[in-house]
């Protein structure tokens, strides 16, 4: 069964190479890409089952034993992440196939889009299964370089501008990560995560804290934790809708995943947990206040994304089994729901011709189905019972209440308020874009006329564009998956709890790599 582990990286990588070779044949390229992601999803599902029933999978690449060779580790957390990511990547891929077919691929140059997308998937999966800090860095770089290409896709002025912010910030975070790896190597003489964990306890506390802060800053930029979240709402909204959707769903979560590993394996029971809780609080509050102020749906969603990263950091910062389990559940929920909302925004853009709620109106009448596909995940993100958002928040609050410090109670209060404000922001979108009649939109006619005079022939089509069935189907599939998270919340929460138990203390993780080091 260990042979399955490298497949999740190899399949998309080989798929990317084949897709690139098939550059001239769009149809074959699409088939290869869909097939590659579907098989990763299948492999991931098998792995999740195996890991959950008979224990984690550890693969020593090339047969070199642990501290010298590279290890790939799939425990419950990693397997769960792989499955959810593969599902989301596949759904967004189908959405983008639908959009690409409808647009005649003018916006997305077809020959590089699919290979780059698969390389992004490779990086994401590699980061999830890495048992080695440097391999984690390589995984991050693979997904970042692919994301640089995707975010500047088409090379329009707005995308280049937004992409530049994103790229420069990511470069800085990568350099910080690499520098932290160098410092950790200097301190403990290894880059194997399990061995680092064994040796880290022996070095002086102040050095530990410096290394810890460096890693947290590097991952915090990637995960968009306040105050390192400034780049996200600037750079995500301009990319094509499917690209934004997959970035929002996955890339920040890879950062959160790395933070979970840092907190549970490398620096367990850290002194920095209260500081992380304060950061979680600020991330939640600042993010949602940004969302309330926005008029553009994609920017608004980007701010809610930042805000909800705070919930996950809260779960991690609690440092308890319940906290980690709740954070795991919340990550799964948030990947699915946030992606669905961005896909919904893509549909709104298509039928309404804009993503600004000041210019949209009457969409409920124009397309009741799209309205439904936006409304359900909006309620879910806002934490309305019985959806998975409510279950995830409840689990987080319970875990925080168990800890019972005043800071934990403060975070519970803030979490409740933030969830209401999220609901307010999203319902504002709903009221403006879907609920109000088109006739109420101020300056509706005049903007249209202005656009027509500025760019004749360009804007007349936006009103009459139809939505391709494939886009609707992909979004509907994601909505169904998010409802599925609610219906099957019991089993899912079971897996999350067991994943949390796996992460109680570093010993279980270390034991996977070094079975003899059990005495610690």
């Amino acid at each position: 069964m260990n042979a399955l582990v490298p497949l999740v990286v190899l399949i998309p990588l080989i798929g990317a190479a084949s897709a690139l070779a098939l550059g001239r044949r769009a149809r074959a390229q699409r088939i290869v890409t869909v097939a590659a992601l579907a098989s990763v999803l299948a492999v991931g599902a098998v792995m999740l089952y195996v890991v959950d029933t008979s224990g984690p999978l550890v693969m020593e690449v090339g047969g070199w034993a642990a501290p010298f060779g590279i290890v790939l580790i799939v425990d419950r957390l990693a397997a769960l992440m792989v499955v959810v990511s593969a599902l989301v990547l596949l759904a967004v891929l189908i959405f983008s196939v639908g959009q690409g077919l409808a647009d005649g691929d003018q916006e997305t140059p077809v020959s590089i889009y699919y290979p780059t997308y698969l390389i992004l998937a490779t990086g994401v999966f590699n980061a999830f299964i890495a048992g080695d800090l440097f391999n984690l860095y390589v995984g991050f770089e693979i997904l970042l370089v692919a994301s640089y290409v995707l975010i500047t896709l088409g090379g329009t002025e707005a995308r280049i501008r937004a992409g530049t912010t994103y790229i420069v910030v990511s470069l800085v975070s990568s350099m910080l990560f690499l520098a932290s790896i160098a410092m950790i190597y200097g301190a403990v003489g290894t880059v194997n995560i399990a061995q680092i964990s064994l040796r880290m306890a022996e070095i002086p506390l102040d050095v530990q804290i410096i290394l810890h802060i460096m890693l947290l800053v590097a991952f915090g930029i990637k995960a968009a934790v306040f105050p390192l979240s400034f780049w996200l709402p600037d750079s995500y909204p301009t990319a094509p809708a499917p690209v934004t959707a997959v970035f929002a769903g996955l890339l920040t979560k890879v950062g959160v995943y790395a933070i979970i590993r840092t907190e549970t394996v490398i620096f367990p029971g850290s002194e920095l947990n209260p500081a992380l809780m304060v950061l979680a609080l600020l991330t939640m509050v600042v993010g949602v206040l940004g969302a309330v102020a926005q008029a553009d749906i994609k920017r608004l969603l980007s701010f809610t994304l930042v805000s909800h990263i705070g919930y996950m950091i809260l779960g991690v910062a609690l440092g308890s089994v319940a906290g980690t389990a709740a954070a795991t559940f919340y990550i799964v929920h948030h990947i699915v729901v946030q992606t669905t909302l961005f896909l919904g925004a893509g549909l709104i853009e298509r039928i309404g011709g804009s993503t600004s709620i000041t210019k949209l109106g009457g969409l409920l009448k124009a397309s009741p189905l799209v309205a439904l596909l936006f409304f359900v995940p909006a309620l879910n993100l806002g934490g309305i019972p019985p959806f998975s958002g409510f279950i995830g928040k409840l689990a987080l609050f319970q875990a925080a209440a168990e800890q019972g410090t005043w800071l934990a109670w403060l975070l519970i209060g803030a979490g409740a308020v933030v969830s209401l404000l999220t609901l307010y922001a999203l319902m504002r979108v709903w009221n403006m874009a879907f609920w109000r009649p088109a006739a109420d939109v101020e300056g509706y006619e005049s903007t249209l006329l202005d656009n027509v005079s500025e760019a004749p022939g360009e804007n007349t089509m936006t009103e009459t564009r139809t939505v391709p069935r494939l886009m609707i189907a992909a979004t509907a599939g994601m909505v169904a998956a998010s409802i599925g998270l609610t219906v099957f919340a019991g089993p899912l929460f079971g897996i999350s709890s067991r994943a949390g138990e796996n992460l109680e203390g570093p010993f279980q993780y270390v034991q996977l790599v070094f079975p003899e080091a059990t005495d610690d």
Partner: protein
Amino acid sequence: MSVSLVLLIVMAVLYACGIYLLLERSMTRVLLGFLLVGNATNLLIIIMAGKAGLAPIVTDGVEAEQMTDPLPEALILTAIVITFGVSAFLMALIYRSWRLAKQDSLQDDEADVAMRGGAVALPSETSGIDASDTEFGTRAEGAVSTARDLEEDDEDAAADAATSSNDGGAER
């Protein structure tokens, strides 16, 4: 662990200059800053390898303690390749950005400007300095006399794209 002071000073200077350049608005300087910071980080990894020694090849009479630590060198090789690829991408990005906006500096986000109440965000000095600073001048045509006409290239590319899409249509 003993550390070479020279390497340490070089690393510090590279980091300082690199971070200074990274904070600039001019994209070319950001690229240079990235290269400096990248090299500084590689130096940091070298420093963390400890004292220099013999080549890490197992032969008779050479103890492990006398050898250089080979792992950091492997890490650096990977890091160099990544830095190389990313700088190539950055240069393409800068070129594209310069062709579109005809300037090297990064523009403010429109939505941010709008949120600030529509105030003009760029200080006037930015554009002035950049225009005279760059050796390309302000116009594409003035840069290299033998350069190909970009507009013409675009037309060619558009024509190519049109024919290829026609081919695609026929195929289907």
